[in-house]
């Protein structure tokens, strides 16, 4: 049986689960790389150009790890998931960066997913990605539809659970955490920020858990369309958090040198400052960031918020 390797980083957090299910149903074995560890980071850093952001370096580390352990490496070229909106340019060139870094040592499955013009492009991407497993496009498509529908149900259920958790923890501080999924879910990249907040008695509210209805008005009042998928969500959710009185503080976690982030977090900070007094902590991470420094800043921030809650400030 063919083994398809998937790096657990970057795009994996956008669409990985659906593709795992899809390839498995079609009869391939799927191996996802383990959670990020120091050796994976080190390999990634050594394979990458130095200017790239840490998440991209980590992706290359995962890809190099999987390259030796699979027949095909799945590296989708995620161009756009909705009209007039794109992913970061580094997602657009991801398969090429992987090929260059690994010197063609592994075969890639790299469907181009570009839904900027029409949603039908997904069909082509699915058929192309599955072409070596199934010669029957109709079957590939029907499997894809089942998997993506199941994934949609899953994410709605997860939303429900997340909200339930939110309510349970409502007693403690509620802190908004603005970050990309591929940073905040990865415990090494985010230095376990969500867990640490929980240990300090605070709950982290992520952009994904803010309702779309609350996000839209903030995007609409902006003079310009934000043309990056993640950042659009982050900006809108951040503004919604800033106008939510139950949120005591907001933490931005960004990768050093993040391109879209540099613009959107700055725009958010400016707009937020004019409208609300909510404190904002800005953390940036790269391969040199020390855990102690991050923890100290986090503790100081939570202490400050706790005191403000008690009315000591």
């Amino acid at each position, binding site marked *: 049986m063919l083994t398809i390797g998937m790096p657990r980083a970057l795009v994996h957090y956008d669409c990985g689960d659906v593709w795992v299910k899809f390839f498995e149903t079609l009869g391939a074995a799927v191996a996802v790389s383990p959670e990020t560890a120091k050796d994976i980071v080190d390999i990634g850093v050594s394979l*990458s*150009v130095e*200017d*790239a952001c840490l998440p*991209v370096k980590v992706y290359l580390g995962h890809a190099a790890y999987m390259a030796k352990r699979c027949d095909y490496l799945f590296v989708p*070229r995620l*161009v756009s998931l909705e009209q*007039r*909106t*794109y*992913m*970061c*340019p*580094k997602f*657009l*060139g991801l*398969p*090429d*960066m992987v*090929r*260059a*870094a690994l010197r063609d040592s592994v075969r890639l499955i*790299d469907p*181009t997913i570009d839904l900027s013009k029409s949603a039908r492009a997904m069909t082509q991407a699915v058929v192309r990605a599955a072409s070596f497993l199934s010669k029957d496009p109709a079957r590939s498509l029907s499997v894809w539809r089942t998997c993506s529908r199941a994934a949609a149900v899953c994410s709605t259920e997860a939303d429900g659970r997340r909200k339930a958790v939110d309510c349970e923890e409502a007693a403690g501080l509620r802190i908004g955490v603005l970050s990309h999924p591929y940073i905040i879910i990865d415990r090494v990249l985010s230095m376990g920020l969500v867990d640490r907040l929980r240990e300090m008695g605070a709950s982290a509210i992520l952009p994904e858990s803010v309702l779309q209805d609350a996000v839209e008005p903030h995007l609409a009042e*902006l*003079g*310009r369309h*934000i*043309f*990056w998928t993640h950042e659009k969500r982050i900006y809108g959710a951040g503004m919604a958090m800033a106008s939510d009185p139950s949120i005591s503080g907001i933490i931005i976690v*960004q990768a*050093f*040198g*993040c*391109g*879209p*982030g*540099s*613009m959107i*977090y*700055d*725009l958010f900070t*400016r*707009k937020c400052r004019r409208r609300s007094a909510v404190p904002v902590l800005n953390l*940036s991470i790269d391969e040199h960031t020390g855990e102690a420094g991050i923890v100290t800043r986090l503790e100081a921030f939570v202490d400050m918020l706790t005191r403000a809650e008690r009315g000591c400030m």
Partner: protein
Amino acid sequence: MRLTFPHMGTLFIPLKALFTGLGCDVVVPPPTSKRTLEIGVKHCPEFACLPLKISVGNLSEALDLGADTVIMAGGVGPCRFGFYGELQKEILLDMGYDFRMVVIDPPQGRARHILESFKSLFPAVTLSQALHAARLAWSKIVAIDRLESLANRSRALERERGAVSAALGRALEAIDAAETVEGVWQACEDGLAAIDSLVDADKAEYAAGSLVRVAVVGEIYVVLEPFANHCVERKLGELGVIVERPLSISHWLKLNVLLDFLNMSGGFRPGELARPYLGHTVGGHGRETVASAVKYGRQGYDGVIQVAPFTCMPEIVAESVLHRVSKDHGIASMSLVVDEQTGEAGVVTRLEAFVDMIRRRRLAHGAVSQRLTAKNAMCYYD
């Protein structure tokens, strides 16, 4: 209405002609200086790319001089440039300026849109006035590109160090001052003749096959703005290198605006050339960078220098694959990544090392080494 716009190399010359022709009072920002950059660095986000920082500095200095309207090009992503206008507006508002911001988006295949946005800006202008202004501006763009291109090929051959750059500067002033299309062509011809007269003919003959040829590619702002790239073209020229720079204002307009309407790609097909290395456009000029490296590699150029601002997303993707182009096509490549921390001496050292490396490589390959013994050449190569 007192109109201003950020600098990008010599772009202010045609823009000034265009907007003056449309009846505007134009405030050209003071030439980009260290002070400009300091203003930008102070007020812009740390990780923003260098062009944003310099442009905010330019606009701040122009608003200080009394401008009240800022005109800026837009974009639709995924390069950050498309979001510049929005952020510049917010930054300048926070700095306390009162002004109007007009962002002109690329036409995306429809001429009407751009004409309409211009029409709303300049309601009193007639069509013939507008066409006249556009024609004058276009002639200036073409003239500047011809002059700069000749200067890049001539510096290596000049008898007196710095003479070509001085002649180029005078010619640009004359073009800036010209008020008619005929005047622009006259200034252009004079400038071309002046630069030609500075070239050492003996050297030129010798140069035919022996001078090092390098292409400068990369992110368009940093390529076109000498302040941002530390005058990389001039420095290379004065190191005895024939410089080719595929990016220019006219090239950009042809590729992105005019040919979009006509649905032509004008001979240069970046997608095809870059495909083995980069299978998709990545925004900005990332794919053009890779395609140009392939093109000049095939043409037998010795080297390609990629210049880009620090954290530039499309150029990081291009940089990641450039070493493969270099290997496949035997063209040396170097990435010069600049930001506000970049020091002049560092750039000079790297350029010298790059050119030295190319010369030694050539000696080792026996291209011009007839006067040297094989032993010497080997020493160089080691």
